[in-house]
């Protein structure tokens, strides 16, 4: 894992001092809330319905056990004993006091963590594949490049007052576990001509009010030049992105209005100006970072055998464990989606336990997924049973990864000041409706995603089944969409028809799923593939017929 050197630490420490000063000026009424708000937002501090909410970055989704223990400490000391893992590899706390926030930031800095640029119209946390460094299908570990992006984007002087927020994701496999085509910039590490590493560059994806799939603006930019290339993209956006209408200010609108061809031409012209300026970090810096993501000290004698004797363990093994590139090892996903629970929430006790298990079984490393689960990336197969048993004790071994109860949900109107409707209760009721594991396995892969407003933090546009909460004359109502995907086969879900009440939408989801079971070619045809094959007619008939 990346570990701060004296430079990184000094910069983050200076940020804590600056924030302490800004908070003091606000508390003394030396600056107005209007002036203070963008400053606290650039430190991840929002005012939500019940209190301040703090969003802490988990760069490229990688945490050390020590950092996880710090998150548990923050939950206990500054919050109400829990945290919420988000769809962009951040964690949020819901009950923060402004007056205590500087001390909280100082504590975080001791664990090499921060909340820098987790909000505001700037470059946000760089997200990545939760299986990075472990996946059998990646061309190289993308995280050193993501770390370089983190440093490049931190306090970027030209790009801290962009038209709107800006999100970058980096992967290194053809399998997209980070929804890169739904980011402002998506970077896929690939081998180019001659076998050299470079990035395929997607620009202009996004969800929100106007969802769009990103366009490939370059098939290959050598790794030695991707920073200046990103700089050129950001420069075009900063200069020409719309500032007259907040709903049209994201880069996807600029790409759409210019057309991908013209946008690409402008980026290339800008890059021709910028590339000679020496903006790219040298190879030595990449090598320094990469050395910190060195392969763990694998047990080369680790066995590939697993005792599947316990049927409950076997269920978890089949659903939540993925192949690892190293013989004798596996990748284990920890579900934060117990039936009836709050998607993505973890208690301080659970965080401490996971930190201990990571130390014992996974080289002290934990990953966070965009679908609000956690991952231990390098587990000896021989240890999986012990790991599972310990997780099960803490309600962390629900064998439901990518199944109908593994629902993404934003905080919604239970917490969020922007929400129009509650998301969590809808997710809970659907999960309870489909609580039977036999039923979940019969349905197979099905990704339900729930957002409480048009901003789409719950990724409803990318849901196989997407649910959007809306306000209908002061009452909560829900729209149902089908056919979205945030994976390598990215697509946008399409609204099925008129909306529903809270109870009505749960019934409608069940009708959609029963219709799928009727029309699928067999248990191997996923819901999404059935939908793409037959269209929405059978589902409309089932729901509205």
């Amino acid at each position: 894992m990346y570990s701060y050197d004296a430079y990184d630490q000094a910069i983050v420490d200076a940020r804590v001092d600056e924030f302490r000063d800004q908070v003091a000026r606000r508390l003394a009424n030396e600056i107005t809330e209007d002036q203070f708000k963008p400053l606290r937002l650039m430190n991840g501090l929002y005012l939500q319905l019940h209190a301040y909410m703090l969003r802490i970055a988990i760069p490229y989704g990688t945490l050390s056990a020590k950092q996880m223990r710090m998150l548990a400490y923050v939950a206990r000391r500054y919050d109400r004993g829990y945290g919420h893992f988000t769809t962009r590899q951040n964690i949020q706390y819901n009950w923060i006091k402004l007056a205590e926030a500087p001390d909280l930031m100082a504590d975080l800095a001791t664990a090499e963590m921060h909340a820098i640029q987790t909000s505001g119209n700037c470059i946000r946390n760089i997200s990545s594949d939760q299986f990075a460094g472990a996946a059998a299908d990646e061309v190289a570990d993308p995280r050193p490049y993501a770390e370089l992006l983190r440093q490049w984007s931190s306090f970027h002087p030209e790009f801290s007052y962009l038209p709107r927020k800006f999100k970058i994701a980096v992967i290194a496999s053809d399998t997209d576990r980070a929804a890169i085509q739904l980011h402002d910039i998506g970077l896929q590490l690939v081998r180019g001509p001659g076998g050299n590493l470079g990035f395929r560059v997607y620009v202009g994806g996004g969800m929100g009010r106007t969802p769009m799939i990103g366009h490939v603006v370059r098939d290959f930019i050598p790794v030695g030049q991707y920073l200046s290339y990103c700089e050129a993209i950001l420069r075009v956006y900063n200069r020409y992105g719309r500032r007259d209408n907040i709903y049209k200010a994201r880069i996807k609108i600029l790409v759409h209005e210019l057309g991908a061809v013209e946008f690409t031409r402008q980026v290339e012209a800008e890059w021709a100006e910028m590339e000679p300026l020496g903006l790219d970090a040298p190879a030595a810096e990449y090598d320094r970072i990469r050395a910190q993501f060195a392969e763990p000290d694998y047990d080369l004698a680790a066995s590939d055998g697993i005792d599947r004797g316990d049927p409950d363990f076997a269920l978890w093994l089949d659903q939540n464990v993925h192949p690892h590139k190293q013989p004798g090892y596996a990748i284990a996903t920890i579900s934060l989606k117990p039936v009836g629970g709050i998607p993505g929430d973890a208690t301080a006790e659970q965080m401490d336990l996971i930190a201990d298990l990571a130390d014992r079984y996974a080289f002290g490393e934990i990953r966070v997924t965009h679908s609000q689960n956690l991952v231990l990336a390098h587990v000896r197969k021989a240890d999986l049973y012990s790991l599972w048993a310990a997780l099960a004790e803490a309600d962390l071994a629900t064998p439901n990864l990518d199944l109908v109860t593994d629902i993404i949900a934003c905080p919604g109107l239970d917490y969020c000041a922007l929400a129009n409707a509650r998301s969590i209760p809808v997710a809970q009721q659907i999960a309870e409706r489909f609580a039977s594991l036999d039923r979940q396995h019969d349905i197979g892969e099905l990704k339900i995603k729930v957002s409480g407003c048009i901003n789409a933090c719950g990724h409803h546009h990318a849901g196989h089944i997407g649910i959007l909460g809306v306000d209908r004359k002061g009452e909560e109502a829900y729209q149902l969409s089908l056919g979205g995907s945030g994976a390598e086969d990215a697509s946008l879900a399409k609204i099925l028809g008129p909306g529903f009440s809270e109870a009505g939408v749960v019934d409608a989801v069940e009708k959609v799923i029963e219709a799928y079971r009727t029309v699928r070619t067999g248990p191997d045809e996923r819901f999404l593939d059935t939908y793409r094959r037959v269209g929405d007619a059978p589902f409309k008939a089932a729901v509205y017929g």
Partner: protein
Amino acid sequence: MRLLTGNVLETGDVVWWDGTGWSRHLHDAADVGADGEALLAATLAAERINDAALVDAAPTADGPRPRTMRERVRGAGPSVRRDLGVQADV
């Protein structure tokens, strides 16, 4: 009836204008009536209560009931965590 509400600068706590000061409890909220705009303007100018706003509510036997779910959630706490928020104190 109309209520004046906001969040305390230092803590973020939800508060309601009770006629003479700020209360944590929705059932203390006073009908600000025609004084609402003046009270809101004074609150904003003081810069000590954030996101101050006037909200519509209906009087009930249990106290004011805000018209929107948003304000009812603010008044109580998260509906999915009855152990948290003002609702947990009652």
